[in-house]
């Protein structure tokens, strides 16, 4: 049953508008995420400076550097491969783009898997890790959630490029024209995630 009302519809906007939305939105989102992790960085230095009850780093709280390196490698590797793929896409090479995005996605997922495995191989528990253990668990878990968001973003581009090859884009309104600004915006977000992960690695694994 329908009442047959008059509905207004707007013509599709030029993808450059959505591209600009995405570019600005991604930078703002990255800023917000950076401030969120600044809170964990602050917590690290604050609790370390106070060292209440000399329990910031109990003797048994040792974060496993090997796992840290593995997570870092997967995250940075994923971002690097994505960057290479993005440049290939910019050059109009769709094959390397798709392959690169797939590889970036898999590496990104691997980072999450390694992180989860690490949780089962810690020398301390949530209750016994002291201040450092708390910051470690909080920082890495929240990073994992946001990293999964980044991995999701990468996957959507891969899926879209399979479904709608960019080369098929004949007119300015084709959705595939959004892939480029989408990829550019995603890379901004990924760079910020890379910086955060580097911070996490230095603070949680290297600073004594």
């Amino acid at each position, binding site marked *: 049953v329908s009442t047959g009302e008059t*509905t207004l519809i707007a013509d599709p906007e030029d993808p450059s508008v959505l591209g600009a939305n995405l570019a600005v939105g991604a930078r703002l989102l990255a800023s917000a995420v950076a401030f969120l992790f600044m809170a964990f960085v602050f917590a690290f230095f604050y609790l370390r400076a106070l060292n209440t009850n000399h329990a910031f780093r109990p003797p048994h709280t040792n974060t496993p550097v090997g796992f840290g390196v593995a997570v870092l490698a997967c995250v940075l590797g994923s971002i690097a491969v994505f960057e290479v793929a993005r440049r290939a896409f910019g050059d109009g090479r769709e094959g390397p783009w798709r392959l690169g995005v797939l590889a970036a996605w898999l590496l990104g997922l691997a980072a999450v898997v390694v992180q989860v495995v690490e949780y089962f191989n810690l020398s301390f528990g949530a209750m016994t890790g002291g201040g450092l253990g708390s910051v470690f668990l909080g920082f890495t878990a*929240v990073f994992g959630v946001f990293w999964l968001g980044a991995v999701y973003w990468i996957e959507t581009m891969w899926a879209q490029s399979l479904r709608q090859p960019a080369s098929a884009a004949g007119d300015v309104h084709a959705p595939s024209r959004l892939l480029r600004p989408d990829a550019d915006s995603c890379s901004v977000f990924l760079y910020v995630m890379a910086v955060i992960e580097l911070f996490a690695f230095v603070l949680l694994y290297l600073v004594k």
Partner: protein
Amino acid sequence: VESASVSVRRIRRGTPSAARQLLGSNVFWAVGLAIGGYALGHWIGARFGPHLRTQGETDSDDVAIFMGLFFATLGWVLGLGFLNYPLGRIIGRPPTLREREDHGPWRYFRLCTDHKVVAIQYLVAVLFFFFVAGLNAMFIRGELTSDNATFIQAGNYLTLVGLHGTMMLMMMSAGVLGPLGNYLVPLMIGSRRMAFPRIESLTMWLTVLAGFVLLSAILLGGFPTGWTGYAPLADQARAGIDAYIASFALIGISLALVGVNMIATVMTMRAPGMTWNRLPIFVWGMVTTSILAVLAAPVLLAALIMVVFDRAMATSFFVSSTGGSPFLWDELFWFFGHPEVYILALPGFGIVLEILPVFARKPLWGYRLAVASMFGVALLSFMVWQHHLFMSGINSNLRPFYMFSTELISIPTGLIFLNAMGTLWKARIRFTVPMLFALAFFFNFLIGGLSGVFLSDVTSDVVTHGSYFVMAHFHYTIMGGLVFALMGGIYYWLPKMTGFKLNEKLGKIHFWTMFIFFNLTFFPLFAAGMLGMPRRVSSYNADLHTLNVFVSISAFCLGASMLLFLGNLVWSIVLRRVPAESNPWHALSLEWQLPSPVPVYNFERIPTIHAGPYGYGLPERVPVADFGTRVIAGEGGTA
């Protein structure tokens, strides 16, 4: 297709039947799935929680509750249809901006990507929770008619104070950005939409959920921390605090996303010719508020996540005995909390500076100064948070810096007053209801601001900290400031939003009763604070009894004045329904050049902007915008 213009077409399209719409995603499904989600999450949490946590500071089943609240949130967004698009993207569906826009009341009960619908949803939700929180205030004042606990026990009194404070802060954070920002910013900058319409809608529905989750704290035994959630109390409190944490986290997410959306909209969606110098001052208010929301709300979210870890997994972020510190919460919370104060104040500045030139019939005096002042306030608001910790044992060497930076913030705030005075100077003022509220804003905010200088000063803060002096101060800034500005904004823009005139006489009665009883309620509380009456405690010195009875009676009258407002809304919009003119105030800004209520896609053609919106009384004024062939409604005539 009936007709086609360059960019908006009218088509005849079947509207789904009511039964079909009921089966689709909507708020009824959302409620059902949220309740089901809570039950499922709670069951999973209860089953696996004990493996996560073997010992902690609380005896409540926090893992189960947090899992329940998480799954309830998932159910809520699933029921509303927010997961359809992201799931579609996983399988490669192309990106789109908006859902199909329909007419009719049904769109108010589901995901809708028309910014005007979202704004009205926001307004209804914010007003609902505002009245609930106001009712809490009435209970509080009722209890304080006696100097000892009577009908509310001490623990419940704390919960009541916490619910009132948290709900007011949460809802007022969204109070202007949500309803007025979402409605007006696209219209004022000549856009058809916000940059991210789905996110816009999501922020609204998360706000609604946050309000109900916070209310669920009552069912979980309440919480004793007030709106500030101080550790270690938050780590040790009963399960009600879990609802506080979840609701504040939802608001934090919502606030950050609103900010991202608002800034992106203003940066990328402005009409041709809408240069930065021509942006309405209200839009600048929204931009500066959004900057604060984007940068401050995530810090709150991180702090809340730490509390979740402490309560659910027994980590020790805030537990001194095991390497944490409760002061960490103070630092993180107030890093958010003080910018939050300006998240509440800056939109108020934007509203009143938008209203003043219209009713003074003069250009806004010192437009650039006003913009610079707003940015000055926003920047400084990140540098003052430790004044909340003057009495918490911070390093005494830090005190002078934070005292100085806090007092510094009064300079840009003072410049906003200068803008107002310059605009009103030698003006022929029309004392309409919006103008009265705008003028009252300055009166109240002046008292709030001046009392704030005393609190920023270490020596006087030592005396007044934790007393009703502080309480009176922030009510003068938040209620006397933001709520008065919001009321002015509602009276000013509601005819545009709804298409109906509000009753002027009822509006004036509402204003005068609200203004008089607001001041009679809160001004005496400065004295109560100076005489040593502490916050958050229902017992006080018997010498203060008469004063408190007077304040309570005034507060009840203040509450009654809000009922007048509600009555005016019902009378004007539901019962009388007198159509509003397109431009009843003869304003120049873009939103007033459109029909009331505004059509779905706002502008048939995107306008070209030729001038700023404050050319009142200028002989050489040019039309603000070129709308193509349409006749515009304002005193600018055709464009």
